[in-house]
């Protein structure tokens, strides 16, 4: 990564964060909330102290990063996987099932088994739309949306049935044994080792895409499947299948980390839409895994701050959803402006514009 790329990876999410706060300020002002009070609550909730950064922002950013990586890697391969939500939930279910089944004496081995189960479940759940797309030509956009709902219902079924806690009163699983939880990184905070796992995964994925042959094939397939198949002699179908499964595995790991590191139990509403916000994370990161770290922190901070804003300034948390959505829309619009400027510059220089768009949905 060149210095310029690193700067961009840090600057762009930062700019988006500033933009989001500005939009929020306007929105707050228009709606008649005390702007200063609300924004200071937002700041305190997101970055007020080291413990808030650790317990709030970073803990919230972790599932967003896993799911964001899942979306980014799929989109890079030309697959519109919007099923990260369902894949994350299936990962959480599998991790819980393993954690409940293994004896606490397994300790770290049990934890690793649970995380692996999350990876396998997420990958398997993603293999369904992958097969449907490649064998039967079913658009993955449609199939993943439906599988998200199915996954949510499976979760609901599990927490009221096979995985319900022993008293059978609450729709949730039993609490995981301490020995099977992800270790805490700081005493007195909720920061868990899953944050490090997410960071390592992001950097590993960036390296995989940039520096390995399979990563190259994945990018070529996404950029131009026809050319990848004919000129590159790449088995496009196989690469897409692998990328889809990898994407699901990343989201599934995110779900497993959420259960073993944060909630310690399976709930029906475990995810407040992580899989959907992840699309915003991936977009802000321009589908670049390393940049997704900063993007996930920005959205994690917004969501952590939103809870504080609701608590201390009675600002509805939905307002942050509005801001997140507006950031995405502004990014989409600015991409268009950027493409226009680039095209003009290119035509002046007489060269061809460098296409740096998102991969268009490659429809078979």
């Amino acid at each position: 990564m060149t210095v310029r790329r690193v700067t961009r990876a840090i600057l762009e999410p930062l700019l988006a964060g500033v933009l989001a706060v500005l939009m929020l300020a306007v929105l707050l002002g228009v709606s008649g909330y005390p702007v200063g009070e609300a924004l200071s609550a937002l700041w305190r909730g997101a970055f007020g102290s080291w413990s808030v950064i650790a317990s709030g922002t970073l803990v919230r950013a972790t599932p967003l990063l896993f799911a964001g990586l899942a979306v980014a890697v799929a989109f890079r391969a030309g697959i519109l996987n919007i099923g990260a939500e369902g894949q994350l939930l299936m990962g959480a279910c599998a991790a819980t099932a393993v954690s409940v089944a293994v004896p606490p004496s397994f300790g770290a081995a049990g934890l690793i088994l649970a995380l692996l189960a999350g990876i396998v479940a997420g990958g398997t759940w993603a293999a369904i739309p992958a097969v449907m797309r490649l064998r039967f030509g079913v658009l993955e956009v449609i199939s993943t949306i439906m599988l998200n709902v199915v996954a949510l219902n499976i979760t609901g079924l599990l927490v009221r049935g096979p995985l319900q806690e022993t008293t059978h009163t609450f729709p949730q699983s039993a609490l995981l044994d301490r020995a099977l939880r992800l270790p805490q990184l700081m005493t007195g905070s909720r920061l868990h080792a899953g944050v490090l796992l997410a960071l390592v995964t992001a950097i590993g994925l960036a390296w995989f895409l940039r520096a390995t042959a399979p990563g190259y094939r994945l990018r070529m397939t996404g950029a131009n499947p026809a050319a990848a198949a004919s000129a590159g002699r790449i088995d496009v179908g196989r690469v897409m299948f692998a990328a889809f499964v990898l994407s699901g595995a990343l989201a599934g790991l995110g779900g497993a980390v959420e259960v073993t590191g944060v909630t310690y139990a399976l709930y029906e509403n475990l995810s407040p839409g992580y899989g959907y916000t992840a699309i915003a994370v991936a977009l802000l990161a321009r589908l670049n895994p390393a940049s997704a770290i900063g993007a996930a922190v920005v959205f994690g901070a917004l969501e952590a701050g939103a809870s504080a804003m609701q608590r201390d300034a009675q600002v509805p948390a939905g307002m942050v959803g509005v801001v997140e959505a507006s950031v995405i829309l502004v990014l989409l619009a600015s991409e268009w402006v950027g493409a226009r400027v680039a095209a003009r510059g290119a035509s002046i220089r007489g060269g061809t514009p460098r296409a740096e768009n998102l991969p268009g949905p490659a429809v078979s």
Partner: protein
Amino acid sequence: MSANLASDFLDASVRNATPLLLAALGETVVERSGVINVGLEGTIIAGCLAGLAGAAAFGPTTGLLVSAAAGLAIAVIFAFIAIGLAADQIITGTAITMLGLGLTGTLYRLLYGDSGAALRTPTLSPIGIPLLKDIPFIGSALFDQALPTYLAAALVPILWWWLYRTQSGLALRATGENPDAARASGIAPRRVQTLAVLIGGVCGGLAGGTLVLAQVGTFAEGMSAGRGFVAIAIVALGRWHPVGAAMAALLFGMASTLQFFFQALNLQVPYQVFLALPYLLTLLALALSSSRYRAPAALGRRQQSVD
């Protein structure tokens, strides 16, 4: 008793299917033009809140019109970014859904207080058609419903006729299959798609209005509860055809009604099974359907920014 129960079941199924059908008919038009609007969920919830506000001020029938206007407004944003600026449709749609859910939650609290206490609105009363509504078994289900149900039922043949029997319907379908060829034959693809998205917005807004004004009678944050995604599934299960959408919507309506019936009868069947079943059925139908019934070829493809 059992005949009564069956008639009640059918009646409730049609009522539950109505908002789904309205949204799905609009989305059928949208997808036939080659655009997929995942923001439908946001459009529906906007229609919900607008319907409530409109009904509180002017009565339920006007409320329905206000909900259609809100759906149209949301569709304008989607059309501007996804078609006007040729941005990715999926990302735009996802943002629109987030926008709709967040905006309605915020506005509701602003308009009706921080408590978010339920504001009740008068609902549209059923319009019984004389004689027909007394037909045993199906009478109340088909001929004693509120206005939106008749509207949705009327839209099915109208849209079929438009899509398959008129020049402009052909232009729309041609755009969905191959925008470049359509352009070559003198059609302006982006204009056609914008029109389709706006129609979809009106239908999605009406679906939200129906939910509030013909069923629930109040607003709750996130009350659309995934109906936009259900509607997208219905479009696929209905094979991108208005009549297919009607049958698929009824199926989904029955599934959600079954859930309430099992709960009311205290049957120990997990209701999640019934909620998930239509989706699994749709996936199966999509996988097994022959290539004759595939999605529009250009569905979801990003448009060029020049016509």
